[in-house]
């Protein structure tokens, strides 16, 4: 077996890549400024829930950006990628104009390149490990934009390549949940020749990509096209099916399933348990986003309602908080406010999301935390009491701990509050498997190989991590696929 390093060297030594490296001098490459992503004007885009903010790079922009890449001997960027995409290879394919090749490179290890190119926190992953960031102290190659470019180009070209799959081995495996970890698992297992079925509890495939992330950041059509790819490869999908409920694990084993991957996500929204939190008009970001994204509630054609507010407060500083506050703006809020207990520096949301939110007129009330809600005679929230905070010593997460300032309470008028302070693991699967080892937080315990205490059950994504990113979930899915393959090959 060749190691990853040997494989990468072999690919780098291909004649075309050696030729391409000679085309420009190092200085010529590093002197090119990083490309700017073309965006829809903020005043225009806030009028629509489903208009994507980022427009994507043109061919010229993509090629020029790709030529910034130094095609390093030791491509550190790959170390920053949880699914180990061969980044220099796909970038260099863009530089030489082989966009379809670039897309194939991506699909070798990523089941969802058009998704990752849009929602991955590249600045904390591949781009953070880019030669430009590490050594030149310059802006990194826009790997995320290029990933999106290659995936979009292929889709729009109409000739989508289907990755090669091994000969069918006839072994049935199940993926539970249809979010990023399961889809990544399914993509790898189908390539290895397994008979893969993905079971989803909701009526739509995609998990958080569909119910959580709004269309202005990730269009549902883009997700559907990536799913189509998996279907072409032979992955089967069953919606409206709750494993453990609709049929038990035993039932599925009797039907011939030999391995299970649980990627059921961190479904359960957290609340803060403060007085008045159950008033009407105070809801989880999961509920708010699900109504809008999955149920189409912002569109009159759909029956599901959504509450609209004039003064909307969103509690939290993560991507979900940004998604919620920007959705509220698009649904007509006059004031959409982020209320976050730490400062801008500690905010876990992606830099790009915060930037987009600011451009769209989102207000940021940082170092503030709600302590109580008040309501009108019908029980609808109308006021929120916040307490101001200052930053103390760093806590376990390494971020400075927010400390309440006594006597700093202030009331603000709100008629809609969206709580986006995190999620807990979905209890449905652990509840129906008494032998499954779970942590005291309810996450499934797995070894490095993603195998649970029940050998045929592997798990990954938020049900293991408790709340992470799309790409880490995808990395888990890949890892689990490899381990399950080894386990079933014994």
């Amino acid at each position, binding site marked *: 077996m060749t190691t990853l390093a040997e494989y990468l060297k072999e690919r780098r030594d291909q004649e075309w890549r050696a030729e391409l490296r000679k085309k420009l001098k190092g200085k010529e490459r590093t002197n090119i400024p990083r490309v700017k992503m073309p965006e829809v004007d903020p005043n225009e885009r806030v009028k629509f829930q489903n208009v994507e903010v980022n427009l994507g790079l043109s061919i010229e922009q993509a090629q020029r950006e790709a030529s910034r890449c130094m095609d390093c001997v030791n491509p550190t960027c790959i170390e920053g990628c949880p699914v180990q995409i061969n980044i220099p290879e796909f970038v260099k394919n863009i530089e030489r104009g082989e966009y379809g090749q670039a897309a194939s490179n991506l699909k070798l290890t990523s089941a969802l390149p058009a998704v990752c190119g849009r929602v991955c926190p590249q600045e904390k992953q591949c781009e953070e490990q880019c030669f430009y960031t590490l050594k030149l102290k310059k802006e990194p190659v826009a790997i995320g934009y290029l990933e999106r470019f290659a995936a979009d180009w292929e889709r729009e070209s109409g000739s989508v390549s289907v990755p090669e799959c091994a000969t069918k081995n006839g072994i049935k495996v199940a993926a539970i949940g249809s979010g990023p970890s399961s889809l990544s698992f399914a993509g790898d297992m189908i390539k290895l020749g397994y008979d893969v079925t993905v079971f989803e509890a909701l009526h739509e495939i995609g998990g958080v990509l569909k119910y959580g992330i709004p269309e202005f950041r990730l269009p549902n059509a883009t997700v559907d096209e990536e799913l189509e790819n998996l279907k072409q490869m032979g992955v089967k999908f069953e919606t409206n099916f709750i494993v453990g409920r609709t049929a038990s694990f035993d039932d599925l084993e009797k039907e011939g399933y030999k391995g299970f991957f649980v990627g059921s996500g961190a479904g359960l929204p957290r609340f803060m348990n403060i007085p008045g939190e159950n008033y009407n008009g105070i809801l989880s970001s999961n509920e708010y986003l699900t109504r809008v994204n999955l*149920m189409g509630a912002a569109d009159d054609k759909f029956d599901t309602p959504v509450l609209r507010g004039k003064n909307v407060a969103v509690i939290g500083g993560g991507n979900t908080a940004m998604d919620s506050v920007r959705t509220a703006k698009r649904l007509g809020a006059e004031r959409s406010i982020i209320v976050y207990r730490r400062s801008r520096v500690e905010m876990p949301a992606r830099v790009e999301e915060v930037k987009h939110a600011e451009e769209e007129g989102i207000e940021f009330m940082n170092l503030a935390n709600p302590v109580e809600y008040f309501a009108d005679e*019908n029980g609808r929230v109308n006021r929120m009491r916040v307490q101001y905070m200052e930053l103390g010593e760093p806590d376990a997460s390494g971020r400075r701990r927010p400390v309440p300032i006594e006597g700093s309470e202030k009331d603000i008028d709100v008629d809609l509050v969206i709580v986006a302070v995190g999620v807990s693991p979905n209890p449905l699967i652990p509840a129906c498997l008494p032998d499954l080892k779970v942590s005291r937080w309810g996450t499934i315990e797995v070894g490095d190989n993603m195998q649970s205490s029940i050998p045929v059950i592997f798990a990954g994504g938020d049900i293991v991590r408790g709340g992470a990113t799309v790409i880490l979930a995808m990395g888990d899915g890949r890892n689990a696929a490899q381990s399950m393959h080894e386990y079933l090959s014994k």
Partner: protein
Amino acid sequence: MNRIVEKEFFSENVVKLVVEAPKIAKARKPGNFIILRVSKEGERIPLTIASADEDKGTITLIAQKVGVSTEKLAKMEVGDSLHDLVGPLGKATEIHKVGTILACGGGVGVAPLLPIVEGYKKAGNRVISVLAARSKDLIILEDEIRKWSDEVIVMTDDGSYGKKGLVTQGAEEIINREKIDECIAIGPAIMMKFTALLTKKYNIPTQASLNSIMVDGTGMCGACRVTVGGKTKFTCVDGPEFDAHQIDFDEMLMRLGGYSEEEKKAYEEFMNRLNLQA
């Protein structure tokens, strides 16, 4: 595909649908519910499973027309298929032999009560059921409840059938007559609230099954949260049944009205459109 194989109107606003769902028919237990969608644009509607026929692979659902979505559901005909159906959801009722059970059902709440009554009877309990509704035509599933009850008392607000009075009057009469070990109450929130107050007075352990607003029904949205014993619980995954003496019914009643303006507006628009078409 979940085809409708039988349909019957119990009254103008209450409809029974028998739907093909072999896996759910096999897996469901008393207390479980399902979520369905009528169409691609439809809401996710939670409904308790009234009964199931494992051999035929069907489940029986009972719905009351209260808004756009239930109106659309009631318009579906035999042979039509539901767009989506998922379940069984929620925790099953914990059924043991405890002695004498008082089962109180109000309006369409009798539908979820039926499998529980059946379960308690089969577990060897003495079961006394009190069915209540505004008037005679709103009393449903009386024969089915009778089949699994030692005694059935019917109460109507207007006295058009059975005895005149509220469910609590019927229940209190029984409580005064003989020893009741446990009570289960299912119906409108206000009916469950007063039943719980009554049984608390007599110290009878009581369960109530809640019909909170939900979206996904799998613990994801938190729309169905309810305060039980001072703690926030999710009806969909922690319930739907809870200790009735611990439920904050006033908060629950308030939360049921959380979308009433939106729902009312949508219903008016929907009915206007129907009238225009007619």
